[in-house]
């Protein structure tokens, strides 16, 4: 029986679903052009974000605890909608320039966003799985959206094969957890946790869940797909994969590993800490060797998954809040960076190498300043958002007696400073031969402005997120 409260708690998801149906109908009857779809998509995403923001104070569950609404999930929903909005804004001219501006793109983005929100607000393992599938299938298609481009097809196929593989792990894990606890409902699993925590089959299930989710967040050693897929996919899609999909996957991670299991001080926490450390080290060190900015950001996203995993490994409420704050900061920063990469990229897919950024500050001072802002934020230099994100996850790690993890975190941050700074050096300290042909248009500037706004505001006033996530603390 569907009640009104079910509908109201699921309102953001419903709003997006209605939007996607409208886009489909409009496309089918040729009522509007792809420009119409663009505006419709933006409206739908904004509405969903506003609805989620309005309900941020409430707590509850919809559809027999299938979807959970509370502070953390509201914030995650807003972040995901935000990544959708910014990606959409970036997409239009990107697609128009490449002659692929079609409504299907926006439908897929909307469906993917619905999947992401489901993952982030899941109250049941089945919903986690459904959300992952909905999101992933859309992203597989989006990765190969330029049908005639080989790298895109390679990217899509690779993403599909490895994604399907990881989903298998996840599903097997869900089955084992269900087998030992008799339920897929997360809160019921949580109450049964103490009784089954040491059963081998349950632990195997937990391990498989961890593997499946680690694939989705691209944590070492399950990161192999990320660089190729990120590099081959259209840059606007890469942006969405690196931010929205990661936010969703971490939302699911937090729902399963923080709110359901109680990993603090257990072997699970130690394994998560090792994954975190490995991601930070490997991601940052390999990123140094990259000369392609898209690939560099891919490795950087692996490293950032490591930082966020340290918050999960801490296994505390602080850890969860830290991860959410980190996600908000990371999403704003990384989307902005990918936006600039996509803007500068040529129609052929070239033009993402570091050399292309030489002397950018002379020709496009505003864009260069924004890119510098994003790079400093990714490094974790205060007063920008990236810093407060790192601060809060390291804080959680230290308080969970994992000071070593925080030490690994700061040392690898120092490593990361080298390659982020290299972009700044290119833009500001090097001269350019020839002009920058491309001029930014309104929707791109709006997207970058939104990103930059949050990078600064979250850095100075992180309370706007923390107070929703943890009211009354």
């Amino acid at each position, binding site marked *: 029986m569907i009640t009104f409260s079910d509908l109201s708690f699921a309102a953001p998801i419903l709003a997006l679903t209605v939007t996607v149906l409208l886009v489909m109908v409009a496309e089918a009857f040729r009522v509007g052009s792809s420009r119409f779809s663009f505006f419709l998509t933006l409206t739908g995403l904004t509405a969903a974000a506003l609805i989620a923001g309005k309900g941020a104070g409430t707590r509850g569950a919809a559809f027999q605890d299938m979807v959970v609404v509370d502070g953390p999930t509201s914030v995650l929903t807003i972040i995901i909608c935000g990544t959708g909005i910014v990606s959409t804004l970036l997409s239009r001219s990107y697609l128009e320039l490449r002659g692929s501006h079609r409504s299907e793109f926006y439908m897929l983005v909307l469906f993917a966003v619905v999947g992401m929100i489901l993952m982030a607000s899941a109250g049941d393992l089945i919903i986690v799985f459904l959300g992952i599938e909905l999101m992933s299938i859309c992203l597989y298609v989006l990765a190969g959206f330029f049908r005639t481009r080989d790298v895109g097809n390679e990217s899509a196929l690779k993403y599909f094969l490895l994604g399907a593989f990881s989903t298998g792990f996840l599903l097997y894990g869900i089955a084992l957890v269900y087998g030992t606890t008799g339920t897929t409902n997360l809160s019921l699993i949580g109450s049964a946790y103490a009784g089954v925590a040491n059963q081998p089959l349950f632990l195997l299930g937990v391990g498989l869940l961890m593997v499946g989710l680690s694939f989705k967040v691209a944590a070492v050693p399950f990161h192999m797909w990320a660089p190729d897929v990120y590099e081959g996919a259209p840059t606007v899609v890469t942006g969405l994969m690196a931010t929205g999909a990661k936010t969703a996957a971490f939302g699911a991670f937090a729902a399963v590993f923080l709110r359901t299991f109680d990993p603090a001080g257990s072997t699970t926490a130690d394994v998560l800490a090792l994954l975190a450390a490995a991601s930070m080290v490997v991601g940052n060190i390999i990123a140094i060797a990259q000369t392609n900015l898209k690939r560099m950001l891919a490795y950087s996203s692996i490293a950032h998954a490591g930082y966020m995993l340290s918050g999960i490994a801490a296994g505390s409420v602080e850890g969860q809040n830290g991860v959410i704050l980190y996600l908000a900061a990371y999403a704003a920063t990384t989307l902005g960076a990918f936006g600039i990469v996509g803007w500068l990229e040529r129609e052929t897919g070239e033009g993402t190498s570091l050399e292309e950024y030489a002397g950018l500050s002379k020709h496009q001072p505003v864009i260069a300043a924004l890119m510098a802002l994003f790079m400093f934020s990714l490094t974790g230099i205060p007063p920008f958002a990236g810093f407060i994100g790192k601060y809060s996850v390291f804080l959680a790690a230290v308080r969970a007696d994992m000071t070593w993890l925080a030490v690994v975190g700061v040392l690898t941050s120092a490593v990361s400073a080298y390659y982020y700074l290299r972009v700044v050096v290119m833009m500001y*300290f090097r001269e350019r031969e020839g002009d920058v042909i491309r001029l930014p248009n309104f929707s791109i500037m709006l997207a970058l402005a939104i990103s930059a706004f949050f990078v600064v505001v979250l850095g100075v006033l992180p309370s706007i997120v923390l107070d929703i996530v943890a009211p009354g603390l």
Partner: protein
Amino acid sequence: MEPTASMTSSILSWTIFLPLAGVVVLAAMKNAQVRSVKIVGCTASVVTFAVSLFLWFGYDAAAGGFQFVERVAWISSLNISYHVGIDGLSLLLILLTTVLTPLALIGTWNSITNRVRDYTIMILVLEVAMVGVFAALDLFLFYVFWEAMLIPMVFIIGMWGGQDRVYAAVKFFLYTLVGSLLMLVAILALGYAASQMPGGQFTTNLLDLYAVGPRLASSIQLWMFLAFALSFAIKVPVFPLHTWLPDAHVQAPTAGSVLLAGVLLKMGTFGFMRYCLPLFPEAALRAMPYVATLAVISIVYGALVAMVQTDIKKLVAYSSVSHLGFVMLGIFSMTEEGMQGAMIQMVNHGLSTGALFLLVGMVYDRTHTRTIDDYGGLAKVMPVFAAAFLFISLSSIGLPGLNGFVGEFLVLLGAFRSTALHSTAYAAIAATGVILSAVYMLWMYQRVMLGPTRESGKYGGNYVFDIGRREIGVLVAIAVLVVWIGVYPASLLTKSAGTARNLIHMMDQMQRGQMPRYAESPIELLPGTAR
């Protein structure tokens, strides 16, 4: 509340953030509006200086302690507040900053020709960060200012610097970042330790943590001390962590060098006095002989290396290593004289070395060379400049009656009388640094200023002319301060006395074992022990 009262009570915040008003105005301007940009920049920094004078005259030295304290909840869920306040030490350094920033801008009025607006913005942002570092009473806030300082500085070096500016900028950035990141972990661990105290909670409030740090177990204290000290020692810089300094100094534009030497290096020595010593007194005592040794090495090594430099700017840069060694020795002599000397020496070095960099910049603007061999007989061509150079050199050497003497004398006195150091050898060896400084400065003066003029009349391929009114004005302003401190140091020493006495008192208690300890077991904070 009356408006005047709220204005006075937030005067410190005004001092910190006023330069941002200039930044906002500048952001609306264009790089091409060179003259207006410069006027806005100078106005913002001069007004900031004027406001900071309220701090100087309002600080009650007799009362001591932290004054002008402001505290506003900031990130409540992480228990972080915007908490600022100043004691005598902060007061001196904030004034030094607000004095040097306008002087650096005016003194290099014509040195920067490209992207003047961006440059001025960077200098003003740097000023905010510098004053903020000295005023912060919350470790989170302190860290934010401390790190934020990197961004403007790396641009100043990298965009307006010399030939190898990119290398120098990157090295500066990475070097200082690596040091401070470990400090971040120590800050978190310290806050965590506070939450382990009975009835305690996680905090980054410095005044609360002053009661926590000293109670930590020795081994933990030592680790945290090292994490903080590494960050500060890189900034000072203490031998052998000084290698970024010559590169950064030589490549930075003049105003960058002035602020780098004048203020940024003091952030390191300030950090030792504000954080390392009072937070971890036991560890500081244990580390004392090693730090003092490194300080003495810095003094002698810096001076010896300065002597053999062929580049004037590099010579001044290495002399900073030597001078800052005195400051470190003064702090770690753990005597009141030493601490007082260290504080006044920070101000002195800021003024003298700042002025030296300005002078080098002035002559470089004319000749475009910094190689000593390219000069000779400059005094005949630029007599006013030569006189100013001599005056500042003498101040840097420590001629009695000028400022440098007071600081070095007090430091050596403190090191000599220090019971904690157990040896007068430190003072004895350090004293040679005074002689060596005379050698390298005067020898450089001789080679550059005296002797026959160049036959062509050109230096570095350019005809030179003496300094003008603007430049003279800036130098006179510094010279007045130099003489004032030299003749009447008490005006500064009374302000800083409270800080020195507090530190000494704390160290004494520590040595006599009277430090209040938390029960029998000091807080353990090793990974895994709390499981």
